């Protein structure tokens, strides 16, 4: 069995308004940060998982992302995978 460290990034789709991102952008500007054009907040999920090779682990992570980690009506996801 191989073990992998996976980082999944879940983001609201560009067409979905992100009010928390807007509020944070507004606070960033109040802090004095210049030049912020856009600020959107997502989630990062870290998973340690084992399986027989990268292909099998990717299949598991695809299922998790598609069915649980993200709601694809409103969110997109991507992930990176590192063999431990």
């Amino acid at each position: 069995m191989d073990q992998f460290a996976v980082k999944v990034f879940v983001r609201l789709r560009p067409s979905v308004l992100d009010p928390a991102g807007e509020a944070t952008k507004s606070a960033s500007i109040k802090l004095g940060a210049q030049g912020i054009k856009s600020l959107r907040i997502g989630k990062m999920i870290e998973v340690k998982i084992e399986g027989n090779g990268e292909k099998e682990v990717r299949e598991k992570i695809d299922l998790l992302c598609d069915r649980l980690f993200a709601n694809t009506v409103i969110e997109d996801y991507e992930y990176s995978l590192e063999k431990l």
Partner: protein
Amino acid sequence: MDNFTVGIVVFPGSNCDRDVSWALEGCLDIRTKYLWHESSDLSDVDAIVIPGGFSYGDYLRCGAIARFSPLINALDEFVKSGKRVLGICNGFQILTESGFLPGALVANKNLNFICDDVELDIVSSKGGWFNYLDEKQTIKLPIAHGEGRYHCDSDTFKKLVDNELIALRYKNNPNGSAFDIAGITNEKGNVLGLMPHPERACDEMIGGTDGLFTLKSLISK
């Protein structure tokens, strides 16, 4: 209809289950039964209410974890049989997460948790959940949510309109919902999800009775 029983689903974090029971039993004399989310036996209930609250603490997304409970898995068969399912607030979020209703519910546009009475236009008669034939086309119900902004893409919206699936629209959209949508049904009409709380508008003593008809319609065929 003497033995008609409405099942009220209870998740860890549900907090409107007792309100729904009070409204059904106390105001409408309809028998109820609490259904713990780990049960998948729906054989002795004739309709189901998924009440409001914060199932699983709204972890990940509202309704995302509840979707995987044994009870929600058993719901597919129940819905296919034509029996009625009403999802209120968090119940609506669970019904969209689990694919019984299209779209999704996301954080309110202004990020506030809104607790207020809202005026709603009755848009569709589908499923007979609202007193459509009455001259009254507008009702007033309370809302209480932080994540009630309905979102769907334009293709889904077209499908909702073409099939008359939009049940309720806000008169003064409080949360930024797409197309002012406050409640929708499935195509068959036996599943209704809505953000407002009909169970909190069942007695004049607490501000109105506009929710009675919707709860009463749980026992209609």
